[in-house]
């Protein structure tokens, strides 16, 4: 979420949940592609179960009989309508496919889903599927800020991404900033937390070509330069220095932890 002109605008696919403890945390919302992949995994599992059942029944000498047909159809029914409800209710909002893609179904308040919620969201699948291949569900998802299909709307559920995050190594500027480069910046650069976060995300991107990187930096650098009445030659370097200055000024309070990146080494 970004604050823009005083209005909260969804920039990335997160949703904020406020708990009874008055803490707010964010969930990442799963998009259609990831959910479709999870659906495919589940579909393959269901088909495989039916195939194995068919082989077992044939080995039991029931091939072609009415009983076999009855059992197969009953199994197909249970797998079609009961698979999702069963796994989502007992498996904490995850079917095997969702587990494989690190997805989870939760209530809108961030709570685990109950039996009735799961029944609703999975029965309305029938409407999402219309006219073929979840076309309607896809359109409804695209029109919703939180990618909810019809079933999710009826049951009040969300599908979220739940991946283990790690703390990444601190960002290092190369070549190391010189003392005079840093001296050109104010002691405390006037950056908001959001701006600092945006700068960090930009500086961490490894997939950009040199030209593109410079092009993107040119859109942001003049804004900050003007704010601090500064000039710059290389916009990428400028943003790097700005971020370094903004984050290391907090380090100044605790000198022993961070090694001095100063003029001493250059001499």
């Amino acid at each position, binding site marked *: 979420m970004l604050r823009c002109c005083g209005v909260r605008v969804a920039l990335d696919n997160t949703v904020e*949940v406020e*708990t009874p*403890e008055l*803490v707010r*945390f*964010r*969930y990442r919302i799963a998009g259609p592609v990831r959910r479709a992949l999870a659906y495919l995994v589940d579909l393959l599992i269901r088909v495989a179960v039916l195939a194995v059942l068919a082989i077992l029944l044939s080995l039991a000498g029931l091939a072609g*009989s*009415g*009983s*076999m*047909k*009855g*059992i*197969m*159809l*009953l199994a197909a*029914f249970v797998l079609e*309508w009961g698979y999702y409800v069963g796994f989502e*209710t007992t498996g*904490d909002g995850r079917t095997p496919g969702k587990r494989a893609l690190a997805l*989870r179904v*939760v209530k809108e308040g*961030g*709570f*685990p*889903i*109950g*039996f*009735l919620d799961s*029944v*609703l969201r999975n*029965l*309305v*699948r*029938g*409407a*999402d599927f*219309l006219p073929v291949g979840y076309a309607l569900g896809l359109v409804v998802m695209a029109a919703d800020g939180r990618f909810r299909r019809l079933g999710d*709307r*009826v*049951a*009040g559920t969300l599908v*979220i991404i*739940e*991946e283990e*995050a*790690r*703390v*990444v190594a601190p960002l290092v500027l190369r070549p190391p900033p010189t003392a005079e480069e840093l001296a050109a910046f104010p002691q405390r650069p006037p950056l908001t*937390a959001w701006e600092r*976060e945006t700068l*960090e995300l930009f500086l961490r991107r490894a997939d950009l070509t040199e030209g593109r990187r410079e092009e993107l930096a040119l859109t942001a650098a003049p804004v900050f330069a003007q704010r601090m009445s500064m000039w710059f030659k290389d916009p990428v370097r400028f943003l790097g220095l700005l971020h370094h200055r903004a*984050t290391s000024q*907090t*380090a100044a*309070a*605790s000198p022993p*932890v*961070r090694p001095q990146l100063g003029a001493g080494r250059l001499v």
Partner: protein
Amino acid sequence: MMTQDEFVHARQGEWAELRALLDAQRVLHKLAPAHVSRAAALYRAVCRDLMRAQAAGYGPDVIVLLDGLAGRAHNALYDAPPYRLRAVWELLSAEFPRTLRRHARFFALGVALFVLPGVLGFAGAYRSRAFALRILPESSVEQLEESYATGFAGRNGDVDAGMAGFYVFNNVGIAFRCFATGVLFGVGSAFFLVYNGLVIGAVAGLVTAAGHGKNLLTFTCTHGAFELTAIVISATAGMVMGYALVETGGLTRTGSLRAKGRDVATLVLGAACMLLVAAVLEGFWSPSAAPAHVKWGTAILAYLFVATYLARAGRASASAPGPSVRTPVHASIQASRQDSSKVAPPRERRA
């Protein structure tokens, strides 16, 4: 003020501890008591860390990590209310018929949307075969005439089992779709009702015109009590859902839909149970060799049972006299009934 590195270094031990507890058990209340209180303390600590990290403007990686951890712990701490077998019994014995009576108007509309096209289909197909051919495909018309000419009496048990599976798969599937498409402002449910009414009417008309009406009726009369009623009920649930989108009562459309969620799910689950009964009857009793008058008798009993069940089950007056002789289980169910009737404003008139 701490730098991010110091913060992470100081706190990551507890984060790992909480993660280990969450990995050990899906829901916290299944852990040993000491671990539960430890996990709760750690959850509060992580929430505090998250707020602190947000306020200090630490990097997005730390925030994402803490968001994820807090979210997981929150999920484990606030487990969903368990759904016990008792709840299934309460749903079938009281809640389902009661919910249906609350939405009696939509049920009546559903019956009309089903029966009128049914009568139309029957009359049309009875009078002209060409009419039936416009509704049903030709191949199935011939198949129908052939199969009902001989009747089903004494079909062997193996075929019965196969057909029972087919009825579950097909009929319950139809009912569920009948319900689901109701989310499109009720149009889907209405369409499927009219369509099924017309087709069933046409089949009956066609077979009767061919002179095998008795075979068809003795076959369908018993399970029809459950099956046709249940299809209309699931369509009723679909229409309740569709109407919630139109008449929102001041809520947003999605909010209004959700407010009806419990009623709708109750109706569909009830209908699904009725359809399972119907499938068993249709697979094993309906095609049996029992003489026609026995089948008529069971059909009358079945209709009486369904009607009494839907009209009377779960009424407070049914259990009013002599509360002293009731077992504790009954008493507690009664208590929960009274609770739920307090919560739901549109109470039944003849309570």
